[in-house]
């Protein structure tokens, strides 16, 4: 049966649908490998790694299904999904950094007014305000609100913590669905770019993890992120660039441009993983949360996306929009 003959999915974009089915097929193969490893491996040392691998794979099924459904359902559903991801990430981040009584109202604004407004601006396709709303308006307003609360102890530190949280969890993450507001030719061009970004970015993480587990010898930053190795970063990064070239059909990129832009996603993703790890080490925890079994928190999963999304957006906007 041809996929295009499915009546329910008749109205959706075929290229998006085929790419998503392809991802599910890869996931199915990976799950079979995970099961084989589970039943053939006998050493106790490998057991933990394999259990974690299978937990991660199970979570990936959920994440791909949720993200895929949102992407196929249209812009508004995708925006709501990313808005929720922002809220969950911000919640994990704020839980981890100590705040004081005087920050309460500023935090309320951050969660329930700033975050929804930022995503509403994307729905309105109001790029001019989307790009400056948090860095100009909110970054000036929130410290003022905190000063009005009257608590001056550690003021600069507290203001910086709230601003950095909004910057990473809301402003940066919102750049991913904002791809849908770019005036690009072609049906669902923004949604396809969003899929491209998320696949290259997340697969870069996965491939770096696999290369690191198989060939990793030299640690890059043992104090900040003990699992990152030179072999993992280089091998995984180059593999992700290869994947980016293969998937360029989703984008307006030439082969060379796909390589360059994928490399930018990989490098920024690596920077995001490292930076968000440094915050975890500073607070003395291993993960941001426990909401995604095997992975940790939402922030552990999207740390690379936070840094890659804005850079990807601005590269595409600069080179590919009129």
């Amino acid at each position, binding site marked *: 049966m041809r996929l295009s003959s499915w009546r329910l999915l008749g109205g959706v974009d075929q290229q998006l649908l085929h790419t998503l089915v392809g991802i599910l097929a890869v996931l199915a193969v990976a799950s079979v490998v995970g099961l084989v490893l589970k039943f053939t491996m006998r050493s106790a040392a490998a057991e933990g790694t394999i259990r974690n691998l299978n937990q991660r794979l199970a979570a990936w099924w959920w994440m791909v299904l949720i993200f895929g459904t949102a992407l196929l359902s249209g812009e508004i559903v995708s925006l709501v999904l990313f808005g929720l991801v922002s*809220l969950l990430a911000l*919640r*994990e981040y704020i*839980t981890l950094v100590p*705040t004081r*009584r005087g920050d*309460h109202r500023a935090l*309320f604004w951050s969660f329930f007014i700033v975050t929804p407004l930022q995503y509403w601006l994307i729905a309105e396709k109001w790029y001019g305000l989307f790009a400056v709303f948090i860095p100009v308006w909110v970054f000036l307003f929130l410290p003022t609100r905190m000063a009005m609360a009257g608590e001056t102890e550690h003021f600069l530190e507290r203001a910086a913590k709230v601003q950095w949280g909004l910057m990473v969890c809301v402003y940066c993450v919102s750049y991913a669905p904002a791809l849908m507001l770019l005036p690009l030719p072609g049906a669902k061009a923004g949604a396809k770019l969003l899929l491209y970004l998320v696949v290259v970015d997340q697969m870069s993480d996965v491939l770096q993890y696999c290369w690191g587990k198989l060939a990793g010898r030299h640690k890059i930053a043992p104090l900040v992120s003990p699992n990152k190795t030179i072999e993992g970063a280089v091998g995984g990064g180059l593999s992700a660039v290869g994947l980016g070239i293969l998937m360029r059909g989703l984008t307006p990129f030439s082969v060379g441009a796909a390589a360059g832009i994928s490399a930018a996603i990989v490098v920024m993703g690596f920077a995001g993983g490292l930076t968000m790890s440094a915050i975890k080490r500073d607070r003395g925890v291993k993960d941001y*949360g426990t909401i995604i079994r095997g992975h940790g928190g939402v922030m552990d999963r999207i740390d690379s996306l936070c840094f890659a999304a804005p850079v990807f957006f601005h590269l595409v906007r600069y080179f590919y929009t009129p």
Partner: protein
Amino acid sequence: MNFLEKAAARAVAGAAQFISGAQARWFGDAPTTEQRVYFANHSSHLDFVVLWSSLPPEVRMTTRPVAAADYWSKGLRQWMACHVFRAVLVARATRAAAAEALRHPEQGRKKMIDPLLEVLDSGESLILFPEGTRGNGYEVAAFKSGLHTLCVARPGMKLVPVYLENLSRVLPKGEVLVIPIICKVSFGSAMEMRAGEGQEEFLTRARAALCGLRDA
């Protein structure tokens, strides 16, 4: 409890778990349906809601929180307190009440403790906050004598310390707006008053057991 109340209790517990993201961690014994007095640090009106919802459903059914009568005696809150949480409402230690208690110490204490003893005699468990009033969330205040009085009246009673983390950040004292910070609920090992243990000594030991869970 009728069906509606049971369903409401399930729904409220589920919602409290979802919103607070509360993670219950049992460091001492596994959860039990046997009679226990859970005592916790107090910094928010949501304290008992989150503690209560962190208990396994069968334990929750026979555990009653002690809550401030003035806050929980109005409208929907009152219905929730009486029918969903089945709270034991006690008058808060106001200045007037304290003055009254100074004049008639025995009578004041009886008024506070008697409703709690009634619950214990019916075989149910209690959740209470021995600091007596909500703190700022940064430190745990010295315990009031109530916990000791209870143990003297019902010797051998098993007490479980529970440390609540981040509740003061979700809904601090004097605030009406809630923010969704993830909470942690840490249950310690059961303890009881030793024979011949003085009030001061016992309260200090109980408070230390509670604070010990903070960094666990």
